[in-house]
């Protein structure tokens, strides 16, 4: 029995979250330190997993399996492949930086950090799940911390609305997927939720064509697919900063990842049939999302809609069902997760100090908080797909994938790139440069932990952009497996 590294990554945050709840509320320092330590443990171990994953061997590694409900064919079954390993790392990074930038939260920090960590367990759990039931278990585990954190700590103006909308959308989505998953369970007739077994279940073409859209779109709601995306901007904006980072950075990837793992990989023939619809909708995501981001006047909504646009590229990459597109999507999931976490972190830093997110009332903050400004600019360059930043090395292969299957999509989706450049530059100019409004004269700089969080996220994106081979071979090994299932179409 080797060291159960994945379980430790998954359950350390949960254990710490429960431990925190047992502490008296006044002991804020201990609460924070425990949260930080738990997040750091998960991150360090996910770095360990990342570094020691055997790319050449491929497949699922660090596998652990325990019977859970044997009567129903449910087991606790975890393992990671080339696609989930980077996502584990990304989730670890975002949870840790989320804790760091929430350090000075004053309103009930005990519950806040506890819920944040439980959310962390949920996302780690989904990424590592090899059992379909367990995947849903972790998927749904996120619902209550998400809802509560938005309602309690969110933006007072819209938190009830945002939380309710987000919860309902995602709940309906997951119920729809669950129905599809149950259909898969029964159709396979093997009395198991083991996804590796289900991969070989050999569903009939008719079954796949019928059930693929149910499962895929159910999950894709969380991935932000048009026209089921509208929970995302409202939810992101209503949420407190760290939750926005996790929602947009990690949770949307959870949706996309589940759509890939369950829908595309288990029902590849269904994917072949429905890919055109996905391509079409996701292209709308890319261009429409960017366009709506362009016309926002609320700083946070700009970023909220930019996520819609970028997630569109992930879904397009999936729908190409070819090597380049899938590799690009794998990279984009990581890159966008880190990027958007940094975006929301900086938005939070600005809002905490300026007490407004109205783009017409912000300005000149570069001189007040240069680290936040540079972090935002770096995330902006990633977002624009600028070479030498991770966005480029992710988006370029996606476009190459489009050329191989749907050239028209490439021609349309590329518009998203230029619109993105326009809104990013507009926001950077409005918020960080130009005249400093008089009422912002007293704004202070960000904290040391904030700077550290900005630096961590930025360095990752630049490193990956300069030398993509840090991650690409890993993603490629995961993609090989996907291609073997979809038949390399």
């Amino acid at each position, binding site marked *: 029995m080797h060291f159960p590294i994945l379980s430790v990554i998954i359950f350390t945050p949960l254990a710490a979250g429960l431990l925190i709840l047992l502490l008296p509320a006044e002991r804020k320092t201990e609460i924070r330190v425990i949260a930080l330590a738990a997040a750091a443990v998960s991150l360090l171990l996910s770095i360990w997993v990342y570094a020691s994953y055997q790319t050449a061997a491929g497949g699922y590694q660090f596998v652990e399996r325990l019977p859970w409900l044997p009567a129903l064919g449910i087991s606790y079954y975890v393992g990671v492949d080339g696609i989930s390993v980077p996502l584990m790392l990304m989730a670890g990074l975002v949870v840790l930086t989320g804790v760091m930038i929430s350090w000075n939260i004053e309103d009930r920090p005990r519950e806040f950090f506890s819920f944040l960590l439980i959310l962390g367990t949920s996302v780690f759990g989904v990424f590592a799940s090899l059992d379909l039931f367990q995947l849903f278990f972790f998927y749904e585990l996120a619902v209550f911390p998400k809802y509560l954190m938005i309602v309690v700590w969110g933006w007072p103006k819209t938190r009830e609305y945002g939380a309710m909308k987000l919860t309902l959308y995602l709940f309906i989505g997951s119920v729809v997927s669950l129905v599809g998953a149950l259909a898969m369970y029964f159709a396979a007739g093997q009395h198991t939720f083991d996804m590796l077994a289900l991969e070989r279940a050999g569903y009939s073409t008719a079954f796949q064509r019928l059930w693929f859209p149910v499962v895929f779109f159910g999950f894709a709601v969380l991935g932000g697919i048009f026209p089921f995306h509208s929970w995302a901007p409202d939810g992101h904006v209503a949420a407190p900063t760290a939750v926005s980072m996790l929602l947009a950075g990690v949770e949307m990837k959870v949706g996309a990842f589940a759509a890939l793992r369950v829908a595309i990989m288990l029902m590849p023939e269904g994917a072949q049939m429905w890919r055109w619809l996905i391509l079409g909708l996701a292209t709308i995501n890319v261009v429409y999302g960017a366009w709506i981001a362009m016309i926002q006047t609320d700083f946070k909504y700009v970023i909220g809609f930019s996520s819609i646009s970028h997630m569109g590229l992930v879904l397009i990459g999936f729908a190409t069902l070819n090597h380049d597109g899938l590799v690009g999507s794998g990279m984009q999931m990581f890159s966008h997760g880190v990027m958007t976490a940094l975006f929301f972190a900086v938005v939070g830093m600005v809002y905490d100090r300026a007490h407004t997110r109205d783009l017409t009332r912000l300005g000149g903050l570069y001189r007040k908080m240069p680290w936040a400004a540079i972090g935002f600019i770096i995330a902006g360059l990633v977002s624009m797909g600028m*070479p030498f930043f991770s966005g480029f090395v992710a988006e370029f292969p996606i476009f190459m994938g489009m*050329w191989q299957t749907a050239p028209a999509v*490439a021609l349309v989706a590329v518009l998203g790139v230029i619109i993105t450049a326009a809104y990013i*530059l507009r926001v950077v100019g409005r918020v960080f440069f*130009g005249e400093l409004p008089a009422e912002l004269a007293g704004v202070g700089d960000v904290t040391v932990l904030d700077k550290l969080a900005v630096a961590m996220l930025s360095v990752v994106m630049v490193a990956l952009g300069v030398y993509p081979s840090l991650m690409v071979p890993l993603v490629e090994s995961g993609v090989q497996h996907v291609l073997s299932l979809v038949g390399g179409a």
Partner: protein
Amino acid sequence: MEFVVSHLLTLILFIPSLAALAMLFLPREEVRLIRWVALIASLIPFFLSLWLWLRFDPSRQGFQFEELYDWYPAIHSSYHLGIDGISLTLVVLTTLLTSLGVLASFSITDRVKAYMILFLFLETGLLGVFMSLDLLLFFVFWEVGLVPMYFLINQWGSANRNYASLKFILYTMAGSLGLLLAIQLIGVVSGTFDLPLLFQRWTSLAGDARLLGLPVSTVKAIAFWAFVIAFAIKVPVWPFHTWLPDAHTEAPTAGSMILAGVLLKLGAYGFLRLVLPLYPVESRIYAGALAFLATMAIIFGALGAYGQDDFKRLVAYSSINHMGFVVLAIAAAAWAAGTPNAVIALNGAVLQMFNHGLSAAGMFFLVGVIYERTHTRDLNAYGGLFALLPAYGGILIFTAMASLGLPGLGGFISEFLVVRGAWPVFTLATALSMVGLLFTGVYVLKAIKKVLHGPLNERWSGHLKEINAREAVVIAPLMALSLVIGLWPAWILDVINRAVSMWF
């Protein structure tokens, strides 16, 4: 030492960036230190590129100093560098102008550290374009250089900088979208981004084959125009030039020097390195259209320059005029590929790029010098300054003459070669362009007259300072090189000519 020799291009390319990263750790207040570190960081690649020039063997076929490493194997892109005579010339121009630009920027006092860091990053972006032998890598550097330039204009520019910087970056990025798509297409079709391989694989695609359901020739024609538009915006060729006057006018002095001196050459280099070799057939088909646009650029650029009352804007328009000759030569070579005329025209084009780099950078610098003293660029506000600033006046006249193409100075040689090469190919366009050359004389003389001659504007008497030693050091190499090339061009033409003859 062995490492230095075998990685000469990498060192030249990344020393500025590494220095910029190191400068992040310098204290913001140590302005003098930051300036000198930046200058030294830009001089090292300059001297290395001189060494490169000495080690370069013009008589050898193909690319030299090649370096090839994996970069993004999943999509078959590699870190492939190498230079020939064409790129070597431009590498030396870039490292020279960056050093001079840093020196010229010693007068910057606002956020010196950020400024110098961006300036050094910019150098890496520019050099990368000239050194890349991988199409994707080319695009990487092509695009990434925009970022520092955007911020230099946006943060250190003059009054209208927000508008100008946004127009600059959106215009260029929008122009690059087609290039991006075409590069992806080429990568998908050819299975590689390696340029020497693409020169064979992509060009050999022909005949009845179909791509994406369309005949190859149609796809190639579309991809050709995607390339051409991206590069035409950068050069810029009329009617894609409208970003230029704004960007050049609003940029800080050294930014304008690099914009005019190097950035415009990226577009022309794109034509030479990519368009002509990758699309020989399409280039020939559309050469006439390109020649037309070039002629328009020459004529309208000159007329536009003449119409300005803003000294800097006048110089900006003059770039459109001068770069028109480069494009005219490229068009002629595309039409007459394989003939001596093509070789002569392209010799002229490359030399014109180099010469224009010298003269335009010099002119922008001199505009900056007078602006720092008078805080105006309005030509009507000057007048009779020769009496106050004889040394500056002499330098300005010299540089303006170099720009105008006075025999004995560099511009004459290159424009003569262009005209000589293009005349038998596009006689009418060349003849019209020579009329444009006449207007060049007119606007240059207008500028000189308005600034230096006429009645002295009493506003300035008494307190205008003469050009100082640092400024003289910036302008001297530009003047000297212009004179040397004007009198004895063989040393540089030899390098250019052999490269051009091998290719075309």
